[in-house]
């Protein structure tokens, strides 16, 4: 997905994990994905650079689709579709 497409997504659940370092964002993402249905979109906000690689890896293992990452100033927005 392009950056514009990602920005235009309707997000069903947004998780702000900017206040935590590893493994915080991962744990918050795990908790939050349980609250949405299959096919719904979740965004994870993280200030932790490692999360950018971690979340796609985790999503792949758990059968969720990684849609892409948008870089904002000082943090990342990572988009997933629940599998």
């Amino acid at each position: 997905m392009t950056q514009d497409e990602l920005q235009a997504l309707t997000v069903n659940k947004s998780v702000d994990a900017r206040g935590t370092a590893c493994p915080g964002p991962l744990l918050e993402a795990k908790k939050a994905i349980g609250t949405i249905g299959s096919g719904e979109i979740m965004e994870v906000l993280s200030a932790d650079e490692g999360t950018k690689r971690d979340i796609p890896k985790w999503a792949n293992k758990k059968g969720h689709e990684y849609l892409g990452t948008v870089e904002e100033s000082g943090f990342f927005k990572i988009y997933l579709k629940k599998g």
Partner: protein
Amino acid sequence: MENIEKNIKELQEKVARLEKGTEDQLSMVLFSGDLDKLLAAMIIATGATAMDMKVKLFFTFWATTALRDKTKKAKSKDFMSKMFGSMLPKGTSKLKLSKMNMGGIGKSMLKSLMKKKNVASLDELFKTAAELGVEINVCEMSMDLMGINKEELIDYPNLNICGVATFLVDAEESKIQLFI
């Protein structure tokens, strides 16, 4: 024809056995009583739960000191155990760094950096681990050697006192085994 059916049945049994063999489980031996190593171990442990892995920790030797609750008092210890127990760190706040501890200066520096960078403290990691169902097994023999009593351990929902067999069985069923 009969042979093929027999072969299929045997194969099915084999597959079932293999599938049962290793679970999505992480077994870790926590041997070190160094703050930094325990932090790393607990980050891996809590992270693994996000992967839906069962996590089983086996605390032995120096690591058992991290499970002492500084507010609790142990009863009925013999003299040597009392001596040894009093020399060992009492709980997470008394642990040292494996490197650059510098009489506690290095440790305070790390702690303030962790706070600044939003890294969870060891106590917070234990709390998270408890919420996520991480199992803690404590080596009975180590506790005995270190002069640590059951009554002085932290309140943790999933804590058992056990022996090496528990670890071995857990490790055998696990996809990942680590020693820290």
